[in-house]
C-alpha cells in the first residue's frame, strides 16, 4: 500500500491549514458564500439538503485497517455514527459542522488521508479496479499509475479551474471492473506488439444528463508518457471545453461536438510539444511507487499442508449451504494459490446501499488485520473487500462478518443495488432512490431466489444527473418528477465494463408504488425466456424488448 513520505505529509498538512484559513475567512464574513463555495468544493465539502456533506478520498479504493478505524472515529465524533461509501470509491459524512471540518481534516491527515479534489471543477480523486494487484490476468497493478495521477493532479496549477469536474479511471486487466468507458479519461492497460505494457487511452465517457461511452483516441501509450499525454488532453479541454452552460461543459460534450478524430488531432499536436518534457515520469519514480504495491508475503502451502487446507475448506463448503452460497457470490478467484478475494456486501436487506456504521467499520478493520494483511478496498459498487484472504480463513471470516451484519451473500446479484442518496439527502434529486432500493431488496430478500436469478445489476438515480449510474445498469431506474409526483423510468441492457453500453428505455415510466412490481416483472420475464447460462444482457440481445414490454404494459 502507498505510504506518505515527507513530501506527501507536508502537502496534506499545508492544505488542511490553508482550508482552515479559508473556513475562518468564511466564518468571519470576509468571504461570501459565493466566494467560499468553489474553495470548499475543492476540499470535498458540499452543502446538502439538511447540512454540510464531506466527501473523503480513498484514492483508487485502497486503504488500511488503521485508516478504517480513523474513519469510524470520525463517523462517531462528527457524523451520527455512520459513513456512506460512494460509487467513486470515496466515503461521505452527512452531518459535519463547518467550524469542525478543519479538525476532521486534521484527523484524516494523521492517517494519511484527505478530501482533496473530491468535488469541484478539477481532476477528481482517481479510481481503479478494486481487484487491482490480485486479479489473475492483470498486466500491471493499475494503482501504481493511479497514485502517480493522484500526485500529479493534486493542486495542479493549470487544471484546478476546469470547465467542469474531471474523472479518470485506470484498469489493469482485459475485463474492466473500473468502468473506464464512462469516465472523462479511461486508461485501460494493454500490451503493444512488442509485448510492452502501456495504455489504451479513452476519452469523453460519462453518464449524467447526456450519457456517452468513451472513445479510444490512442490504442497504445507507453506508460512513461502517461503524464504528458494526460496534460495534453487536459490542456485542450481547459481551453476549449464549454463554459457557457454547465450541462454542456464536460469533456464528453467537447469530444462529441468536435468529433473524436478532430479532438484526437488537437491532443496529439499538443502532446508532440509536451512529450519528453519536464512532466514526463522518470523510470525511478515509477519504480519507487511500484515498490509500495508489492504483494504481501503470501504463505505458500505445499504437499500435505495444502491438501489438508483444501480438504477442510471443501468440507465446510459441503456441510454449510449458507457458507457455500456466500462463497459463490462474494468470493472471487485470486492470483496466488491458496488465497481468495472476499467481498463484503454493504447492501443488507432493508439497508441503505453503501452505508456502514462506526461499529461495523471497526469490525471490518479488526477482521482485515486478522485475515487480510490489514488491507481493505472500496469498490465503485459501494461494497468493500479484503483482497488477500487465505482459503482456510474464509469460513471464520464469513462467520465473523455475519455477526456484524456484513455477510449478505449478494455481490453482483439483484439486491446488490447501486443507488444515489436521492431526495432523502440531495438537493438536486427529483425523486427518492434509497426507499426504492430498499423495497427491491425486500422483494428479492430470499437469497436462494437471488442466486437462482444470478448476476444482475440494478442501478437507481434520483435525478437526471445520474449519480446512481442508471444508464449502465442492466436494469436502470431513473426517478423523475412529473407535476410534483415521483415517476420512475426504466432502462434495460446497460453495461459499464469493456462492453459498455447505455441502457434503452423500455416504455412509459412507473409510479412510486408500481416500480418494484415492474422490476419483478422484468426479472421474472428474464427467467422465463433465458436460455442456458445467459446473462440478462445476452438474453435481451437475443429476444429484444418485446417480451418485456408485453409483460410490463399488457394490462395497461
Amino acid at each position, binding site marked *: 500500500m502507498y505510504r506518505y513520505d515527507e513530501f506527501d505529509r507536508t502537502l496534506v498538512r*499545508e492544505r488542511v491549514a490553508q482550508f482552515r484559513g479559508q473556513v475562518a475567512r468564511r466564518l468571519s464574513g470576509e468571504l461570501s458564500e459565493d466566494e467560499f463555495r468553489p474553495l470548499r468544493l475543492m476540499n470535498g465539502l458540499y452543502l446538502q439538503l439538511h447540512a454540510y456533506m464531506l466527501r473523503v478520498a480513498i484514492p483508487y479504493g485502497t486503504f488500511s485497517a488503521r485508516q478504517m478505524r480513523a474513519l469510524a472515529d470520525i463517523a462517531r465524533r462528527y457524523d451520527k455514527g455512520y459513513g456512506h461509501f460512494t460509487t467513486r470509491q470515496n466515503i461521505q459524512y452527512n452531518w459535519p459542522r463547518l467550524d469542525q471540518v478543519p479538525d476532521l481534516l486534521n484527523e484524516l491527515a494523521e492517517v494519511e488521508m484527505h478530501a482533496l479534489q473530491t468535488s469541484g471543477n478539477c481532476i477528481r480523486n482517481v479510481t481503479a479496479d478494486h481487484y487491482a494487484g490480485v486479479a489473475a490476468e492483470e498486466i500491471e497493478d493499475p494503482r501504481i499509475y493511479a497514485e502517480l495521477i493522484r500526485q500529479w493532479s493534486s493542486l495542479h496549477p493549470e487544471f484546478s479551474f476546469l470547465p467542469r469536474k474531471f474523472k479518470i479511471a485506470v484498469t489493469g486487466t482485459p475485463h474492466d471492473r473500473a468502468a473506464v468507458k464512462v469516465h472523462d479519461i479511461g486508461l485501460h492497460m494493454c500490451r503493444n506488439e512488442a509485448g510492452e505494457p502501456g495504455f489504451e487511452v479513452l476519452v469523453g465517457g460519462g453518464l449524467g444528463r447526456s450519457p456517452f461511452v468513451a472513445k479510444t483516441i490512442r490504442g497504445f501509450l507507453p506508460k512513461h508518457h502517461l503524464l504528458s499525454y494526460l496534460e495534453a488532453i487536459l490542456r485542450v479541454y481547459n481551453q476549449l471545453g464549454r463554459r457557457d452552460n454547465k450541462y454542456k461543459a464536460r469533456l464528453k460534450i467537447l469530444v462529441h461536438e468536435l468529433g473524436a478524430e478532430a479532438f484526437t488531432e488537437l491532443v496529439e499536436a499538443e502532446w508532440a510539444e509536451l512529450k519528453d518534457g519536464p512532466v514526463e515520469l522518470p523510470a525511478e519514480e515509477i519504480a519507487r511507487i511500484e515498490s509500495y504495491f508489492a504483494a504481501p508475503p503470501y504463505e505458500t502451502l505445499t504437499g500435505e499442508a495444502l491438501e489438508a487446507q483444501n480438504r477442510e475448506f471443501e468440507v465446510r463448503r459441503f456441510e454449510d449451504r449458507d457458507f457455500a452460497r456466500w462463497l459463490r457470490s462474494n468470493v472471487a478467484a485470486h492470483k496466488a494459490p491458496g488465497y481468495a478475494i472476499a467481498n463484503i456486501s454493504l447492501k443488507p436487506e432493508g439497508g441503505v446501499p453503501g452505508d456502514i456504521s462506526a461499529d461495523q467499520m471497526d469490525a471490518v478493520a479488526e477482521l482485515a488485520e486478522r485475515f487480510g494483511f490489514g488491507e481493505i478496498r472500496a469498490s465503485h459498487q459501494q461494497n468493500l473487500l479484503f483482497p488477500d484472504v487465505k482459503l482456510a480463513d474464509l469460513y471464520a471470516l464469513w462467520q465473523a462478518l455475519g455477526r456484524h451484519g456484513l455477510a449478505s451473500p449478494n455481490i453482483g446479484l439483484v439486491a446488490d443495488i447501486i443507488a444515489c442518496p436521492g431526495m432523502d439527502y440531495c438537493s438536486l434529486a427529483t425523486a427518492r432512490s434509497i426507499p426504492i432500493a430498499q423495497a427491491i431488496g425486500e422483494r428479492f430478500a430470499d437469497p436462494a431466489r437471488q442466486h437462482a436469478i444470478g448476476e444482475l445489476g440494478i442501478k437507481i438515480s434520483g435525478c437526471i444527473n445520474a449519480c446512481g449510474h442508471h444508464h449502465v445498469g442492466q436494469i436502470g431506474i431513473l426517478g423523475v418528477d412529473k407535476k410534483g409526483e415521483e415517476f420512475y423510468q426504466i432502462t434495460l441492457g446497460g453495461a459499464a465494463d469493456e462492453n459498455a453500453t447505455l441502457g434503452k428505455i423500455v416504455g412509459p415510466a412507473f409510479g412510486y408504488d408500481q416500480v418494484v412490481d415492474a422490476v419483478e416483472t422484468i426479472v421474472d420475464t428474464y427467467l422465463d425466456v433465458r436460455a442456458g447460462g445467459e446473462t440478462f444482457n445476452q438474453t435481451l440481445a437475443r429476444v429484444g424488448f418485446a417480451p418485456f414490454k408485453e409483460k410490463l404494459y399488457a394490462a395497461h
Partner: protein
Amino acid sequence: MPLIKGDRIAEDPWITVGDEEVLPEGAPAIVSLARWRAERDTLAGRNAPLGIRLRADQPPGEIAAELDRFQVIALEFPSFGDGRAYSYARLLRARHGYRGELRAVGQVLRDQALFMRRCGFDAFEVAAGTGVAGWREALGEISVFYQPAEDGRPAAHGLRRNGNAATPTPAADAVHDEDLGPSSPERDLSTERLGNDGYR
C-alpha cells in the same frame, strides 16, 4: 486597480486604453487584440512601451509571432472559475518563450495567487482593498509541488530522486522580506528569478 508585483503594491505606469479612447502621448499603454490588429502600424511606430490585453476566449497563439512587440501581456479572468488563462500563461512562458510581464486581470483573488504564479504570472491587478499581507500569506501556504510548472520550483519527484527532504512549512511571519518565497535557499532563488527578472 492596485497592482501587486513581487510582495508589494507596485507603481503601475501602464494605462489600459479602451478601443474608442485616444492613446496617451508617450505613456505605456495596454490595448485590446482588436485594436492591435486594426492599428498595428500606428501602435508599433509609437514611441512608448506597448502591452496587450487578451480576453479568455483569445488564446495567445493569436499573437505568438509578435510577442517581442509587447512588454506586458494581460490575461483576463472573467470569473474565479474560468481557468483558461492558466493554460494561456503556461503556453506563453513555456511554448512561446515570452519573458515580459504577464499580468492577471479581471477577477483575481488571493486563493488563485499560488496557482497563477506557478503558471507564470508575475503581476496581479487586484480589487481595491486587497491586503498585501493576505496575498503573501496565500503564496506561502503550500510548499510542496507534485508537478513541474513555470515557476522553476522543483517537483516532489525530482527532489525525492535527489534525496532532498521536503522543506519545512514556512511560518507565515517567516516570509522573506524581499520577495514572497519562504526562506529556504532554493526557494529564494526561484522567486527572485520570478519577481525580478521575469522568466528563464
